[in-house]
């Protein structure tokens, strides 16, 4: 199998000079293409910190992170931004979308940054909106979308740039259980049909159930890493 993420002995310490917080402590993690992995653990266990490190938003104090064969640990800031743009999809917990852009424009935005042509963008946006079941909301502003719909657009946007994998930090935390389950359905479908790799953190046991691999963090350390049995649909 092809390894997309190789985190090697990664540590992140906040406030190393004053009161050091070992948010991520000596983590080894391999993620293969096509995984559908949940990152779980109590509040403050380092889930967000680890996802930020894997996504190149933050730099580890120790260890190295290799994405699809590229070591991003010491990449220059602007290079890293470009790398994120072309290799990593992000879905945040909330306020994901640019409020002044429509659903379509939000998805398109990232492709514009990548320099895709109008034709490419239009086609891809249409496909993605269809996949997330929001074809009728093409020109709707984020403020007119429900929380669940906004998160679905965020997933579509993360997908638009054709990344190596998508990182989602508690994507369902602000959603009711129906919307959460819809979002998971879409993510699972994209995982299955497009072989898109997803890594998401969550507290929600119903979300954890949907994962095929569950990595548990406690105090910044991986305490368990299990492949779960999937009931096929």
């Amino acid at each position, binding site marked *: 199998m092809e390894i997309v993420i190789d985190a090697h002995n990664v540590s992140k310490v906040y406030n190393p000079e004053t009161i050091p917080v070992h948010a991520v402590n000596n983590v080894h993690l391999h993620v293969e293409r096509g995984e559908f992995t949940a990152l779980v653990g109590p509040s403050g266990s380092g889930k967000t910190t680890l996802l930020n490190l894997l996504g190149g938003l933050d730099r580890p104090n120790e260890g190295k992170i290799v994405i699809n064969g590229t070591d991003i640990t010491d990449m220059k800031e602007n290079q890293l931004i470009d790398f994120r*743009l072309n290799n990593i999809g992000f879905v*945040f917990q909330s306020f994901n979308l640019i409020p002044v*852009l429509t659903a379509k424009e939000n998805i398109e*935005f990232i492709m*514009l940054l990548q320099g895709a042509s109008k034709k490419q963008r239009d086609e891809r946006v249409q496909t993605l909106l269809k996949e997330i079941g929001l074809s009728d909301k093409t020109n709707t502003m984020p403020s007119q979308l429900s929380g669940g719909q906004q998160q679905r657009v965020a997933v579509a946007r993360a997908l638009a740039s054709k990344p190596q994998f998508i990182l989602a930090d508690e994507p369902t935390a602000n959603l009711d259980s129906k919307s959460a389950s819809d979002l998971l359905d879409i993510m699972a479908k994209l995982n299955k049909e497009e072989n898109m790799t997803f890594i998401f953190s969550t507290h929600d046991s119903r979300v954890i159930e949907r994962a095929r691999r569950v990595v548990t963090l406690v105090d910044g350390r991986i305490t368990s890493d299990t492949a779960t049995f999937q009931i096929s649909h």
Partner: protein
Amino acid sequence: MLLTLAWRNIWRNKVRSLVIICSVAVGLWAGAFIVAVYDGMAKDRIRTVIQEEVSHLQIHHPAFKEDFEPKFVAGDVDSLTAKIVAVPGVKSITARSITRGMMANASNSSGVTVIGIEPASENKTTGLQGRIIAGDFFPEGKRNPILVGNKLAEKLNIKSGNKVVLTFTNTHNNLTSGAFKVVGIYQSINSKLDGTNVYVLRQNLNALLTTPGKAHECAILLNNDDLVDSVKLQLQAIFPDLKVETWRQVSPESDLIATYTTQSAIIMVVIIMIALAFGIVNTMLMAVLERTREIGMLMALGLKKGKLLTMIIFETFLLTLVGAPFGLLVAWATVALTQDGIDISAFADKGLSEYGFSAILYPILSWDSVYQIIVIVVCAALFSAIFPAIKAIRLKPVEAIRQ
């Protein structure tokens, strides 16, 4: 796309943006109007200098202006006139005899500049007749007529019809004097000149100075202002021994005042824009701070710093520049509506005429000024954009998102 984003972003807080846009519009309206008024004053002053006082060019003996010694004549009136008239672009010319002396009536006396003129050509060149406010402009048959300025007339308590005595030295350094009859009182825009210049007939003055047929000064009016430098060169070539000066050289203070008037108006616009810039900086800083999370998110997604910088600069520019055309347009309309002149004599007559300015303002909004104003506005926009843009790119995506 960044432009669209910037445009929509400025409308997220409509009231705040509108306040800024309106302030810029009002500020520029006021600024541009002040510039127009000052410009009008400056142009008017220059017109007065050229058309009533100095004319475009003047010719003198090189030593004449040092002491106004009567022996330093420019030459024979007839030959001077003939040669000058032959130069293309010359509209009219008048030759004068000039000296300095004392004017006295029964009770008072005052230092004066006596200008000996030939009434027809003088009037054609400087329009002196139009400034007569009492009496007549050298009526036929009067012996030794003299025109006195309003200010001097008041000072010496002289009326039209009075007799005055002029005393000065002739070319032989002998004191000589002559009795003149006041035929008219004139008043010009420049009250200083009214207090010193008196006009007599050239042949009368020449007789007293013992300079028959000669002139000390030739004043030349051209067909248009742009010819000044080229005609000056031609005349200098024709009269290598004489001093040919443009109105700027003859009256450098007028040129300076005109330039400074316009410049001080431009400085006012700069001050207005600096004040506005602080408001714009403040608004944009607030806009950046409010959107910390969103900006962090954009950077996380892959918006490079350069593009983020561009976006913030676009926003600032839009905020600054949207109001500018309105302000300029309203200023232009105001100028158009006040083309008949704004009479401020009620407030400022004395003060302005001391400096040779008319009390009626004719605002002129020239393209030159508009360009300058636009440059100032763009600079203000750039200046205002720097801080917020730096603030934005300093944000770290992780920290911004965690907020």
